[in-house]
């Protein structure tokens, strides 16, 4: 697990610590206080109860991170496509319609530095 993924998991655990503590209290601490410790069945159940929530948090983090990456990729691809379509449409227009205030294209093009002329 890389550092960014580890940070996400730690952040998620910190964010869900109160639900985690209350869940462990009711499912583990209360039965333990009532003397459930010696039973093998309880020990097995306790192991599963201890393990499943952190695994669920990690899975949720993985799903969330994947969804975020996919969403940003999709947004970037969409923006690129919109720019391409916009440029293509602009190129199809006659010059007068591209720059309505002037009869010709402006003398300064994008990327030109007017102070150097």
């Amino acid at each position: 697990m890389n550092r960014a993924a580890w940070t996400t998991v730690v952040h998620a655990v910190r964010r869900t610590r109160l639900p985690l503590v209350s869940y462990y209290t009711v499912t583990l601490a209360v039965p333990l206080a009532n003397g459930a410790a010696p039973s093998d069945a309880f020990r097995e159940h306790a192991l599963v109860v201890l393990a499943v929530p952190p695994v669920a948090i990690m899975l949720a983090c993985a799903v969330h991170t994947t969804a975020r990456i996919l969403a940003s990729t999709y947004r970037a691809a969409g923006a690129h496509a919109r720019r391409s379509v916009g440029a293509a449409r602009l190129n199809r227009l006659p010059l007068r319609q591209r720059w309505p205030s002037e009869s010709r294209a402006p003398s300064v093009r994008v990327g030109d530095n007017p102070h150097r002329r």
Partner: protein
Amino acid sequence: MKAKRWVLVAAALIAWGMKRHYADARADDLGWILSPTARLVGVMTDTTFEQQRGEGYFSRDRLFLIEKSCAGINFMVAAFGMLVFGLRHRVGSGISAARVLGVSLAASYSAAVLVNAVRIAVAMWLAAHPFELSAFSAADVHRFEGITVYFGGLVLLYELVQRLDRNAVAVRHRP
């Protein structure tokens, strides 16, 4: 400070009372939570549950019994404790303490009915569509499902209450 401490003591006593009631109650005594849960599961799964004296709520067409251990009292106790602890910063007087306890109790009851109904509906679906995993038995899958749904329900409830709480604070401080 004193009111906050008292609200936590009162919450612990209420939680203990709920656990005590759950330990001593028969399925018929838990109708206050089993009945709405059975009705909600019936709506979700398009099934009818009938009350069976001393056993719980039974669906004849699915051969599924919602018994005492499916009541979701443990979830309700966990949710109640979590909400009171999470909302304790709102306690300043006796009235606000009673409000926090009342809201936490109502929210934990509603969440227990809803989350438990989802858990039972998923369990019914899993029972109708069994899938083979060499490492896990059907009981293990049922256990994983229960833990995941209950813990997920607690997290969602906590996030919802935190969001509502933040919005309420923002509205109060708006000029």
